[in-house]
């Protein structure tokens, strides 16, 4: 039986029960989403728009509820989807208020566009969060490879793992991160 199920899941896509309840529009689902994700959303909005973070975060959750039918768990987690909404709400807000984003980019030039700054902040947060959600072994391999710059053989030696296992962990880890990044972006 498990073989049959595994064939139905060529990739690991596992919408959480909360994601399922949100998609179904169940009573109380938005409150649960808020409880689980508001620290992330508010922190992200604070970084992007500063003092008006609460206003933008409110828009994020209201939009999440209204557009819940468009959430597709195969394109990324609920957290990535909320980050996607925050990305666009922050851009709208910054354009409307004609302010510079509170990200360290102003010295780069006089670009009128806020999207590159917002995108960079959101992308980095989405991948940091997705990395923290990886199974420990995959997380360790990716962190050693990218945060510490070790090569595959060096990681294998550091963790005492076969080289093939390190490569497998790296590929699986990066696939998961890629999926989350895509889920946090527009169509």
């Amino acid at each position, binding site marked *: *039986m*498990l*073989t*049959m*199920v*595994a064939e139905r*899941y060529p990739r*690991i896509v*596992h919408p*959480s029960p*909360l*994601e399922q309840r949100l998609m179904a*529009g*169940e*009573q*109380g689902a*938005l*409150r649960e989403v*808020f409880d*689980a994700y*508001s*620290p992330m959303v*508010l*922190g*992200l909005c*604070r*970084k992007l728009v500063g003092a008006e973070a*609460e206003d933008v975060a*409110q828009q994020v*959750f*209201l939009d999440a*509820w209204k557009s819940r039918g468009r959430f597709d768990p195969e394109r990324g987690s*609920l*957290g990535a989807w909320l980050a996607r909404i925050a990305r666009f709400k922050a851009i709208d807000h910054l354009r409307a208020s004609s302010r510079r984003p509170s990200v360290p980019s102003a010295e780069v030039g006089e670009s009128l566009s806020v999207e590159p700054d917002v995108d960079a*902040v959101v992308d*980095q*947060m989405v991948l*940091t*969060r997705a*990395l923290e*959600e990886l*199974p*420990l072994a995959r997380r360790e391999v*990716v962190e050693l*490879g*990218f*945060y510490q*710059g070790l090569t*595959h053989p060096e990681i294998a030696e550091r963790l005492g793992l076969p080289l*093939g*296992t390190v*490569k497998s*962990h*790296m*590929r699986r880890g*990066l*696939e998961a*991160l*890629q999926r989350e*990044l895509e889920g946090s972006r527009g169509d």
Partner: protein
Amino acid sequence: MAIEHDLPEFGEVAAILRKGPSDVVYETPPDTLWAAIESSLDEGGGGARADVVDIAARRRGRLRIATAVAAIAAVLLVGVPLTLSLWGSSSPETVELAALPGYEGFGGKAELDGRDLAVDLTGAEPKQGEFYEVWLLDIEGGELRDLVALGTIDASGHYKISQSVDLSRYNTVDVSVEPDDGNPAHSGVSVVRGELPLA
């Protein structure tokens, strides 16, 4: 950088990762934030108001159903006697992992403490090009509804279960043998399994 050359299709992810961890600081929202959202939903009408009170009652109902389903599923799915032994009724909970057909001689135990899962696997000797992987399964109505990967295991492993995983549903610990082929899907070949007490 060797890693980037090895996996060129992940170039953008790699570039972002190399910037290091994000400095976004998670922030506990003030009570007024949810109140504002709830107020806006009420104004919008359409029955979208998020009622906090209903959640607990619904969870209790789901738990009762899930308890019955899981008990049936354990018999239908596993096909071998599951030795379920709980040592103490309070946290942490420990369950024996029973061998599945074809993998007699395998065994182990899983201990759940909050969202920390410790798994000990015995009798396992992976062949060249194979490894073992730990999963949580969501079984309902005798069918596997969903599954989530926790990580690889040799003889023992510790796993942090994400808050997004509802342990009242994903309560079956499964260890599979996986070919080292880079495919993250479950191989369909499980060696041991055990059912945790429902949260």
